[in-house]
């Protein structure tokens, strides 16, 4: 067996244990054999690359199956081929796909979190606005109901916002006033269905100091 035959036999895994050992010894000692062996490896590599790059087109598959008259099956075949291609592509770039999908999920999650935080911040800023002084006055509430009827011009004006806010935050303040009033003897409090409180306040209630700014 010539050295070149030995290379082919070694590649085909046809050498016995002893023959393989002798071949490896001669490979280590001979430059020519090493060059041939290297050429063989390069040849294998090129063949593999050629095999990967040579593939029939999808149109050909459709053309063949249509020619054979199995059109109904050809659709299934193309779907199967798509799935097979997808599976092979997934196998080949599994880590890339996984990383990309995780990255997309992370980006989406961070965007949702950011938007949620932004919304929460805006909401908390709005909620922390101080209630208008007009509503918090127990005297005014105890004597007359809050007028929440607004005209369009009032809505457009900055003061109309205050009126609206007073309507939203009014019950808390009114409840506080109601507790204060109920402590006073001889004070009758009547709750109207409209949410306003009216009563005949005869107690010694002082209006709050409006000069101090409230937070």
């Amino acid at each position, binding site marked *: 067996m010539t050295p070149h035959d030995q290379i082919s036999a070694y590649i085909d895994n046809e050498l016995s244990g002893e023959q393989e050992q002798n071949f490896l010894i001669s490979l280590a000692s001979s430059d020519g054999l090493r060059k041939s062996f290297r050429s063989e490896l390069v040849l294998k590599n090129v063949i593999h*690359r050629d*095999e990967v790059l040579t593939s029939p087109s999808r149109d050909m598959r459709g053309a063949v199956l249509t020619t054979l008259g*199995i059109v109904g099956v050809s659709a299934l075949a193309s779907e199967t081929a798509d799935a097979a291609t997808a599976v092979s592509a997934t196998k080949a770039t599994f880590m890339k796909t996984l990383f990309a999908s995780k990255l997309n999920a992370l980006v989406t999650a961070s965007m949702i979190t950011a938007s949620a935080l932004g919304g929460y911040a805006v909401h908390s800023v709005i909620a922390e606005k101080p209630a208008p002084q007009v509503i918090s006055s127990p005297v005014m509430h105890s004597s007359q109901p809050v007028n929440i009827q607004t005209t369009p011009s009032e809505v457009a004006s900055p003061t109309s916002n205050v009126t609206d806010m007073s309507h939203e935050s009014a019950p808390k303040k009114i409840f506080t006033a109601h507790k204060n009033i109920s402590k006073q003897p001889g004070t009758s409090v009547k709750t109207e269905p409209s949410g306003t409180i009216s009563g005949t306040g005869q107690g010694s209630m002082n209006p709050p100091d409006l000069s101090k700014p409230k937070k």
Partner: protein
Amino acid sequence: MKNKLKDILPAEGVRSADEGLDMPIPSEDMQYLESMQPLTQDRETQLFHNFLAGDDAAFRTLYDAFERSLYIYCCRLLKNDAEAKDLFQDIWVRMYKMRGERIQVRRFSGLLFTVARNFCLNSIRDNRGYNNLSLDEIPEDAEVFLRTKDIESSDLRELLQKALSQLPFNQRESFILREYVGYNYDEIADIMGTTAANVRARAHRARERLRVIVGAWLELKSGEHK
């Protein structure tokens, strides 16, 4: 051992988590799963007999399994790619027309590549000028062969394709079926109608010739770099 199995296996009356797998798999899914796995000799022959009995889905499964290897076989055996594509379609049409024939097949892939071989031989015979190529037309000196090619503009893959196309038909076919399709020598001998030893000798000769060309190409390239 039995005690260990008792620990592992679920007790009677206890539903295991895998019980849902006992459900019948839809036929479309089964076909898909079959197409994803390499067919065994018995399976491919069984599928072919199913096709002969009128099952188009079986033919599709066979097509999916052998499409790529047959395409490579045609492209590398013939010089012209367009001709190889036409021949590829003709081979499948020929296989489909076997439905009306009463044939007993021992192995479908053997029949497929035998039909392909005959088609390729006919095509080469029809194209005068190409079939007259012989071993003598390839220069013995690999460097001479390389100098006739534009190695600056072509890579080793193209170069080997050209070298492969100039090998004698039998050597080329043995080499392609061995290296590209991956058959063993007995299977190739079955297709080519010869002995395994003969196939081995042809494949070795082709490989040696190509290896010499690769070696010369590597030396030329290394000389350029120096």
